[in-house]
Structure formats: structure tokens, C-alpha cells
């Protein structure tokens, strides 16, 4: 299994690349070796590597030299540092899990100083994910990221002096859909006008790939998706978690420290798929599909419903290599069907 994995793993961009073949694709200006990435907040490349280092130094090095995702999406960053919600924060449920992490992060300043440099050193494109509680929050964080990126080697939205601009390696995902913070965020993503306002304000300051990540906790997602696309989003990420609740078995009080949490995992897959299918039929921008992806059949399902890229969330907890494994399996599945990636995308509608 290790042998097989190592045999199939490419060295990332610029290397001789033994990544899954025939799966190369694009998300706006960003080229991807295959369509499988991680979902924000469910996969911390550096923490996994550090844990692996405790197990095996070489494995950790290999992991960072060749991360098991086509692009890496770090956890949401907000303007100010946040400690997140009180514990307990997670609970397994039938076919899935609830989480109420609550976007703990060091804030944009620390992010730019400490996280961004090592993110940029990864041999993969990155899609930064940002959150906030007001339109201004999103603009502020996006602007800070842009300034930082423009200042890097090869920075600036224009390609100059033979250096490749960061535009082909860095995207931005707006988390306007987190159910675990009790203002902003999800309330923005539940309203077409608010969504349009945030997206167009960020569009002003962010020249690169811009994705809006939407919440499924709405009566009708289509107007929201349309509003985001019309306001300038290059693509949409569907979906964030479904708001849920569990009680402590003994006390019969809410189990999670934050009372409610977000449901993810295989349990929600049929629900997530419905949103991707509906939005894909109504809106003409690329979609990043997610929600319970666990097997290559799930990947095919999201692609067929109209997603161009598929993200692995909670299933990556039990197997951090999952996105890469799925890419390898996707290659085989397409071969078995004698179909190209492009042919599968959207085929449920045809």
C-alpha cells in the first residue's frame, strides 16, 4: 500500500509528476493536477506532518513535499484572533459527525506573518479561506492577503520579469456559511443581497480566483448562488455543514459546548448532492462540490451533478491520504468507463 502510494504520487508542480494522469483541470486561473482537494477546516497539512514526524520523520517530509491534495485549502482565517467554541466540540452521529469548532485562528496578522510563507512554499496551489462578521471584515482580510501576496517574489497581479504571478497559485474562498459562529458568516450566506454585497466588495480588492462558500441551511439556494456569481464570484463552493444538535446521553442537555453544531460526513451526501445539482442547473460558474465525500463513487456523483472540483472533508479525518487515494481511483474509474473528466462533469443533467 505504501509502495503503491509512493509509486503513484507525483512530486507536485514542476516535478516529473507521477500524479494521476488525465485528470488535469483548472479552477479559473489555477491549474490542478486532478480535481480533488480538501475542505477547509478538516485538514491541517502542517499539523498532520508534525504528527507524522512523531511517527516517522521521513513520512512527514514526504507528506509536505507531496501533499495528498491537488490544491490545499487551509482553515478559515478571520480579522482578529479567535479561540473558538468551548469544548466539547465534536460528536459522532449516524453516518457523520457534528462539530462546533467555531473558527479558532490566530487572526489575519499572524496568518500573514507565520502561515502564508509556509503555505506559499507548498508544491501545490492554495485556496485561502476567510471569514468574518461583516462585509468590512471580509474586505479587510482579503486586502491584507493581497498586499502580502503582491509583496512576495513573483507577486503582483501582473506577471513581470519572467516570474509567475501568485494569481496562478493562490485563490480565495469566502466562508459566508459557517453555522458555528453566532453572527455574521452564515447570516450573510443566507441572504442573496448580503451575499452579493460581500462578494462584490471583496471582488474590488481581490484580483485572483474568488469562490463563495454557501450554506445549505436555506430555503432556496439558487438565488443566493446567482447573486454570488453575478457579484463576481468565479466559482461557488457547495456546501458547508448542516446545522444540527445532539444531547448528552446522561444529562439530556446539549452535548456540544456551543449547543448547536454543523453536521458533515456521509450522512449529508444526498443533501449536498441536491444543492450541487440545483445550482449547477441554474448558475454558470464552476462549482467545488463537497459533503460526505468518502469513496470514488461519491466523487463521480459530485462531478456528474456538476462540480468541477470535489473536496474531501470529514472523511479525511480517518484517512489523511484520502484525497490522493480518491484521485488515483478516479483515474481508474474514468478509464473503466472510457470517459474523460470533462465528459463526466455535469452528466447527470444530460
Amino acid at each position: 500500500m505504501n509502495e503503491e502510494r509512493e509509486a503513484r504520487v507525483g512530486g507536485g508542480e514542476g516535478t516529473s509528476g507521477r500524479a494521476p494522469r488525465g485528470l488535469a483541470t483548472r479552477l479559473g486561473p489555477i491549474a490542478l493536477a486532478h480535481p480533488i482537494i480538501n475542505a477547509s477546516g478538516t485538514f491541517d497539512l502542517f499539523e498532520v506532518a508534525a504528527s507524522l514526524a512523531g511517527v516517522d520523520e521521513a513520512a512527514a517530509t514526504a507528506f509536505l513535499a507531496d501533499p495528498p491534495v491537488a490544491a490545499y485549502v487551509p482553515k478559515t482565517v478571520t480579522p482578529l484572533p479567535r479561540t473558538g467554541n468551548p469544548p466539547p466540540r465534536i460528536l459522532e452521529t449516524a453516518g457523520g459527525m457534528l462539530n462546533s469548532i467555531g473558527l479558532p485562528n490566530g487572526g489575519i496578522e499572524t496568518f500573514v506573518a507565520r502561515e502564508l510563507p509556509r503555505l506559499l512554499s507548498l508544491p501545490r496551489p492554495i485556496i485561502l479561506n476567510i471569514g468574518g462578521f461583516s462585509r468590512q471584515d471580509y474586505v479587510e482580510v482579503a486586502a491584507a492577503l493581497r498586499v502580502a501576496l503582491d509583496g512576495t517574489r513573483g507577486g503582483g497581479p501582473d506577471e513581470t520579469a519572467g516570474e509567475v504571478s501568485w494569481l496562478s497559485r493562490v485563490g480565495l474562498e469566502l466562508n459566508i456559511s459557517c453555522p458555528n459562529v453566532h453572527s455574521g458568516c452564515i447570516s450573510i450566506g443566507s441572504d442573496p443581497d448580503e451575499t452579493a454585497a460581500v462578494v462584490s466588495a471583496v471582488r474590488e480588492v481581490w484580483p485572483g480566483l474568488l469562490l463563495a462558500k454557501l450554506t445549505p441551511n436555506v430555503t432556496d439556494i439558487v438565488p443566493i448562488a446567482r447573486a454570488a456569481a453575478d457579484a463576481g464570484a468565479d466559482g461557488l463552493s457547495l456546501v458547508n455543514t448542516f446545522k444540527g444538535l445532539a444531547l448528552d446521553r446522561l444529562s439530556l442537555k446539549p452535548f456540544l459546548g456551543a449547543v448547536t453544531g454543523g453536521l458533515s460526513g456521509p450522512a449529508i451526501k444526498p443533501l449536498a448532492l441536491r444543492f450541487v445539482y440545483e445550482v449547477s442547473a441554474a448558475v454558470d460558474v464552476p462549482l467545488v462540490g463537497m459533503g460526505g465525500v468518502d469513496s470514488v463513487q461519491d466523487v463521480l456523483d459530485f462531478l456528474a451533478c456538476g462540480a468541477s472540483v470535489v473536496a474531501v472533508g470529514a472523511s479525511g479525518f480517518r484517512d489523511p491520504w484520502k484525497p490522493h487515494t480518491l484521485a488515483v481511483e478516479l483515474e481508474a474509474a474514468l478509464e473503466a468507463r472510457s470517459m474523460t473528466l470533462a465528459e463526466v462533469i455535469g452528466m447527470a443533467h444530460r
Partner: protein
Amino acid sequence: MKDRSLATVLCSTQVGSMVLVRVRVSGWRPARPGQFAMLQAEGSSCFLPRAFSVHSQGEATPDGAEVSFLIAPIGAATHDLATLSPGDRVWTLGPLGRGFGAVDDMRRSGGRAGSGRLLLVGGGVGVAPFLLVLESLLQRAIARPEDAPTQVSVLFGFRDAAQAESLALFVPAVDALCAAGVPAGLEAICEDGSLGRPGLVTELLTESVRVGDTVLACGAHAMCEAVWRVCRQAGDDVDVWFSLEAGMACGIGSCLGCVMTMADGSMARVCREGPVFAGRDVFGESRHPCAAPGPHGGGS
């Protein structure tokens, strides 16, 4: 271990109300005492793996190592693990987390600051990590006798006779330690009186602990709190370490789901900053511990 790997069950033995599962893991890198692994029975109906202390490990060979876990079947995932048969397979990721660093440190402190005495306090299935602690002390006692603790006391508390059967798993290791020249003893107490007077492990601890001792504890949160109180009463120079429990999704620092609120209000991940924490960090200095790390009762 290079990777999450599919270990093979070698044998599964009922030990009272617990089950001892021995697996062969390919590429296993030796665990330090107190480290854990994320386990998930192949085909389990549970979505997530669960954390289990490494109970014991054999030598690593090119074929992998034999590693054992002591499992108390309390819910769906532990039930799936406890009913495995030889040949069945288990997804295994580990060893993970920071173990009982004090096991290494105190060897030397014996001659210097502390008493050199090591007290291992376990409650219920919280006894699990202490076999690896004893095995590791034995190895060092043989390799470098001068670094051994001056004395090792194993103090276990159980709920009932069925739980207390696990005691037998530790007797040979304690005997071996004595044979290697480290004075070691094993005492246990049972809430239902099936091991003599009924009582809690903290009663044994109260009788034993003294200034300068190093105490390693693993068990339900209520037990840990009580251990902390007893040790504080014995004096500030008792060095206390707790192996804590929390629900985990990933076990490797990705999800931020396993945090506990420390005494200073900060959040620490049990899987990365722990599972072993210094008593002071968990409970602070107050005599009336207040920072309860959530409702997850552990280990008992």
C-alpha cells in the same frame, strides 16, 4: 510507521469486562509510554476512529511489530474492536501524542530533586497505558540501572471484580522490575469491595504519596481531579501528570475538535499537546479545581 495502515489481529482475549487485542502493525515505530493510536475496525459501522493507549508493544521487525491495546467496550466503536477475531483487520494510525515524558525525566531526578519514587495511578480502563510504562522502566533499569526510579508503586482502582481482572496483566511486569533491582509494588482497590475493603484509588494514593514523588495518572476525569487534590494536600513538590481523554476526530491535530480548556483559559488539543498534561496546566494552583475539561468522563 509510515502511514495509516491496516493491522492484522493476532489474538483477542477477554480480560474480565475488558478485551486485550493484539495486532501486527507493519512499519510500527516504537511508542513512548502514554502515546496512543487511532483505531478503527475494518468495516466498522462507526464513522470515525477512536483513540487507544498503547498497552504494550513487541520489538519492531521488518514484518512490523506486535502491539496490544486494552479495550473497554462501552459504545459502538469499542464494541466493534472488542469483537474482532484473529485475522480481522484494524485501521491503525500511530503512535501519536506526547506520552509520559516524566518517565524519561525522573530517572535522573531521583538522585537530585525528587524522591525518585514513581507512582502510577490508574482507574478502570485508564490502567491501559501503564504496562508500556512498566516495560519501558524495565528496559532502562537493565540498560542503565543508575537512571531507574528508586521505587515504583502501581496503584489501581476498579469499579467491580470484572474490571479488576485486568490487574493480572500487570503482575509479571512488576515482578520483572523487582527482579531487575527496582523495588516495585502493585496495590489495587475495588469500589464493590471485591479486592478487600471497598474504596477508591485515591485512598491508596493518600496512604502512599509524599513530597518529591512523581505521580502519573490516567482515568475518569473525576478520578483525576481527586488525584490532584490528594497530591496538592501532600505538598507542592509532588510532580503530577495526567493522561486525559477527549472525543477525537482525527487524532493528528487537524480538526481542533479535541481541545480542553486549561487552567489558564487557553485551549489545548488532547491529541497534540496531550494526551499527557502537567497537573498544574490542567487544574491550576487552586485547591478547588474548577477548570473541568468538558463532560467526557474517561477511562473508568
